[in-house]
Structures are given as structure tokens and as C-alpha cells.
């Protein structure tokens, strides 16, 4: 009788090891896959042409110029590398000077141009002029005025 009383019931416990394994795997997945939201990318409704012949951006270093959306088809300015430029002659000249300084540091710098699909062309075209001017202002022969027009692919 005394022998039976000395046998204690085993404590019931869930084996948490597989769950912790899976949880850590999930965390590692999210850490690797997620990227810090690029603050330089402004939330814009980009054009999405049908049957787009666009290509994936390469791994080259690049700077993003956003044409900030205003009311209707207007724009309220431009944004590049967390700095805002007014949509007037002075703002565009400042943009060209900043970009020229970047070109001097890195002649192979790519320029991504992001504009909202509803924005009028008259706000986008000055950026082409500014990029051309920046290539000229950089004073380097190996800098080519070139932009990457950013769109969203539907399919």
C-alpha cells in the first residue's frame, strides 16, 4: 500500500520545442524578406500600362525622384533623397545641382523617376530637363543623362 502512495503522477507539459523552432524560422523569414520601407519612395499610384514592356530594375545604385501629387493633375513639388524641391525654376535648379553633386560622386548613378498616373505631363517633363542639366553640370564626360521611368506591372 505504502509503495503505491509514493508513485507521483508525471506532470503533464506540452513539448514546446517544435513550436519555438517554427516560430524562429518564421521570424528569420520575415527579417530576411522584409525590407525597411524606403522612405524615399512616396506613396503614388504609378502608371500600369497593359502588356508592359518594362524590365526589372537592376542592382545598380540609384536615386529616386518623386513627382509629388497635387490636386487634379497638378504637382506640389519634387522629392529626392528626403529633400523636397519646389516645382518652379529655382526648385528645379536646386534639384539639378544636388543631382550633379551625386553624379560627381558616382557617375553610374541611376535616376528613377516616379510620378502619379494622374499627374499632368507638364510637371514630369521638367525633371527630364533637370536630369540633363545635372549630367552637364557634373562636368564629367562619362555621365549620361538617363532616367528610369517607374511603372507597376499588373500581370
Amino acid at each position, binding site marked *: 500500500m505504502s509503495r503505491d502512495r509514493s508513485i507521483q503522477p508525471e506532470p503533464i507539459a506540452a513539448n514546446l520545442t517544435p513550436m519555438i523552432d517554427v*516560430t524562429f524560422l518564421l521570424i528569420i523569414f*520575415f527579417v530576411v524578406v522584409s525590407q525597411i520601407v524606403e522612405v524615399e519612395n512616396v506613396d503614388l499610384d504609378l502608371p500600369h500600362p*497593359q502588356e*508592359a514592356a518594362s524590365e526589372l530594375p537592376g542592382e545598380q545604385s540609384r536615386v529616386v525622384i518623386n513627382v509629388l501629387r497635387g490636386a487634379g493633375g497638378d504637382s506640389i513639388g519634387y522629392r529626392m533623397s528626403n529633400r523636397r524641391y519646389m516645382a518652379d525654376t529655382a526648385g528645379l535648379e536646386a534639384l539639378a545641382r544636388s543631382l550633379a553633386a551625386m553624379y560627381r560622386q558616382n557617375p553610374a548613378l541611376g535616376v528613377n523617376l516616379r510620378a502619379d498616373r494622374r499627374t499632368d505631363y507638364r510637371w514630369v517633363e521638367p525633371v*527630364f530637363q533637370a536630369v540633363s542639366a545635372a549630367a552637364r553640370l557634373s562636368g564629367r564626360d562619362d555621365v549620361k543623362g538617363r532616367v528610369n521611368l517607374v511603372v507597376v506591372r499588373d500581370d
Partner: protein
Amino acid sequence: MTRTGQSASRRRRCGARLGLNLTSMIDVVFLLLVYFMAATEFKTGEEIYRLDLPERGRAADPFELPRDPLRIGVTTVGRDEYVLRLSGPQSAGPGPATFEELFVFLETRRRSDRAAGGVFEADHPIIVAPTGRTSWDHTMGVFNAAVRARYTNITFSAP
């Protein structure tokens, strides 16, 4: 205490398993998991078109034969409608009305080894000519049609 009682109590003490308390770690790990799941933003499929801007002030090649560029005007009408207007070679007659028709128009006129009847070389100058009020979406629609038809010398005009 008897000898038997002492050994029983020692056994009970030794039987208590040593183990780390994982509760706090699991709490933190779950918090991290929830954070990453909530904060992760999967990248939308952003893609690019490469556009070489014309070099201003470049001396013209004296041996280059002038080629009449094909000018494709596009105007936004209302909110989502657009009107295409072609000028230059091959622009006589009713022109394409949609981006798909524009693509077919350009594709069938591009000279290639496989198809006869092309009139434009792949590097024939094509000028996308939107008005100032044309939406960027419609501008890119024209540009996409020309890129899709595999033309390589595409520029934008000033509004």
C-alpha cells in the same frame, strides 16, 4: 525521521527537473513575429523603362541623313479617355485610336528580317508628344507601345 523516510524525500527533491523558464522568451519571440508580420510590406511589382535623354549641345553628325521622325501626340480627354494623333511619315489616313492599335501600327511598320513591308528601322526616331495636360498614365501608354514594338530611339517632346 526514519532512514526510509529520508531517502524518499531526497528522491523527491532530486526528481524535480532542472529547466529554463522559456515563457518570457516565447513572449518576446511572438511579439517580434507579430511585429514583422504587421510591418512587412511586400514590394509591389515596380519595373522600369530606361530612357536616354537627348544630349543638348552635341555637335550634329554631318554625315547623318536627316530622318523624318514619327511624332505621336496624345491628349487626355475627360478623366480616362485619350486621343492619339500621328504626324510624320506613314501618318496619313485614319490612325490608331488605342494603345493596342498603336502597338500594332508600329510593330507592322518596323523593318525586320522575318516580315516584309516594314518602313521604319528599329532606331527610327519616334517622338512621344503629349500636351501639358496629358496624364502621365497616357504618356506612358504611348511610350510602352513604342518600346513594346521594339523601337530603340524614343524621346519625349516638351509640352
